[in-house]
């Protein structure tokens, strides 16, 4: 876990206030609330394997846009960001991991440049335009990152709970996937 330095950075930037891992990060400034009804809350996991808190917050906000909560759970409810963080510590790395953190950093930098706030604090509409820009970008790295982000989010929402996402299999049950009796544990 690589917290202190990152936490210091975030606090200095005034982007968020929070106490420690395992608590909620609240984005409750007027900027964040400008075009969304509720402030964006992220439950930080007890530990992070690879990502900094700032990266985790960016990731969680992006997962929330890619697979949002409606009358069924969204990617953040299902634990997709936890899955992504844990997967980045595993060997072999998942195929989508290549260039993943660099892609998150570019997403964050674009948010700051265009909207003057971190990605996590941007409005839903601004977050969505930042993601859509990646798909349309002439830079193939950006389009690849968006696809990798989508893949990682879906694996975290709909993969086996043993990998840290898809809490209690809710992604399968609540979205209505056929029940597969042999899909509840991880291969040894």
């Amino acid at each position, binding site marked *: 876990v690589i917290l202190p330095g990152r936490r210091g950075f975030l606090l200095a930037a005034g982007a968020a206030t929070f106490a420690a891992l395992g608590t909620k990060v609240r984005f409750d400034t007027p900027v964040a609330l400008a075009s969304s009804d509720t402030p964006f809350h992220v439950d930080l996991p007890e530990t992070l394997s690879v990502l900094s808190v700032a990266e985790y917050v960016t990731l969680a906000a992006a997962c929330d846009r890619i*697979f949002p909560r409606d009358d069924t759970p969204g990617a953040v409810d299902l634990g997709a960001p936890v899955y992504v963080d844990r997967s980045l510590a595993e060997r072999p790395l998942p*195929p989508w991991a290549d260039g993943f953190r660099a892609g998150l950093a570019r997403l964050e930098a674009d948010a700051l440049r265009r909207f003057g706030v971190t990605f996590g604090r941007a409005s839903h509409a601004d977050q969505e335009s930042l993601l859509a820009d990646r798909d349309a970008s002439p830079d193939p790295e950006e389009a690849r990152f968006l*696809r990798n982000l989508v893949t990682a989010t879906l*694996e975290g929402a709909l993969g086996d709970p043993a990998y840290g996402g898809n809490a209690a299999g809710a992604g399968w049950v609540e979205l209505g996937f056929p029940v597969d009796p042999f899909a509840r544990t991880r291969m040894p």
Partner: protein
Amino acid sequence: MKSGSDYADVVVVGSGAGGGPVALELARAGARVVVLEKGRYVEPGSMVHDEVAKRRHFMVPDVRDEPHTLRYGEHQAAARTAEGWTANIVGGGTVHFSGFFHRMHPVDMRLRSALGPVADANVADWPISYEELEPYYRRVDEEIGVSGTWKAHPHEEPRSAPYPLPPIDEHPIARRIDEATARLGMHSFPTPRAVLSQPYRGRGACAYCSMCADYGCPTGAKGSTLAALLPAAIATGHCEVRARCMATEVVVRDDGRVDGVVYRDAEGMTRFLRARAVVLACTAVESARLLLLSRSSLFPQGLANRSGLVGRNLLFSSGALGGATFRSSTPGDAERHLSAQRSVQDMYFMDTPVDGVRKAGTLGFLVGFVEPIGMAEAVAFRSDGGEPDAVVWGSRLKQRLRERLSQQQLHFESFCEFYANAGTYVDLDPEVKDRWGAPVARMTVSPHPLTRDATRLIARKAMDVLKLLSPDEAYVSTPQTETKFLQGGTCRFGRDPETSVLDRECRAHEVPNLYVSDGSFLPTSGGVPPTMTIMANAFRVADGIVRRLRAREI
């Protein structure tokens, strides 16, 4: 036998369709057999449906450590790929196959005679006939338990006995497929499966989870060598399977006979295993690579390769993919996920050419199983028949996923003749090496125009059938591709050492105690998945080895 011994009567490299039958028959005959398998051992009961593991290539090697390289034509630069690996697990590709267990047809063994010369293709007759192979097909039926229906259609290959097990239960849509094919003058029939429809020889029956392809079978009903053959081989007390042991060189003595196999064990130590005979069965691509890596002063171009033919005439199964979407589904079975279980072989061999094609292959229909991540990704990336456009995400992704889950999908796939040709082969990549420094296998692929035409013909016929089922949408998603799990041909067997690597016993013409028992021997791909034929031939090869061991000829 003593575990960890550095001597065996016979070393078998690979534990899948080509290695499993040889290990079993030699062990039954009392020979001391060691099977070297580069993959790990996974208890059959641990074979859960872990889609994340599948996506991380649990079943095949990590491409970062052990790539293949692939190019379409010699003008291209070869790119790193995981394609061309069939498996990396005890049991090989049989662990994660679907088990579509069609036999080849008599015409496959005499295709050159049947077609006459084919321009720019290396079509050859086999040195054995269907009739010589038939008893071994029957042995596979009985050893692993094949489920099917005899005398179901006019194009069926001759059989000396019925299937030991009745066919797998099918989705009601099968009846509608039968009606549609009958209206078109075609004959659909129950797909024979290496899956137990009933308990058999101590193994349990199919639980109808439907997730055969790409996953291990949790109940042992699927006829993998892991479930059906290797336990019996080990039970003889004469066979040891060494997992995570990668053969790196076959060593030859001064008299031109094979001395044994060098391998890297699970701890990364290099070891040598001496043997009276060596059997390579690690897939057409990797068996060829191992021979090409085994250079010596006697065989400077690679073992058994004075002819320069090792790696040549690489074969795959050519396939088209597509399907249909139904918004109102045919009700299936609430408890069991049943598949359509239908095949069509009216395009197998045609006396009169259709679209310029006389030899095509098998069309199969199946009700796909649902892989949650795969389905969501297909919707997101629009790889399911929709036009390729922006990635779909957000509430639109969830909405479309719900629609998709309410629809029924019927898929088709095909197994079509892949015409061997001079532009399709395996050699050692001149630049790329695996993480241990050995050159990797480079695949160069140039599908023959007839392969493309034949595959498209099957896709066209599939669309004719699907349209009669009144779907909301029918589509061909892939007009022609090579299924690289299904491979053969790199050490063709034949009578003439000038044009073949192996003799009719699948023993190297140039090395009297070296055999290859995987798909490498195939001179033609057949119009079916080759796995059943590889297994049958491996039983035949084993009989030949036992005969020569007993006669002290090897």
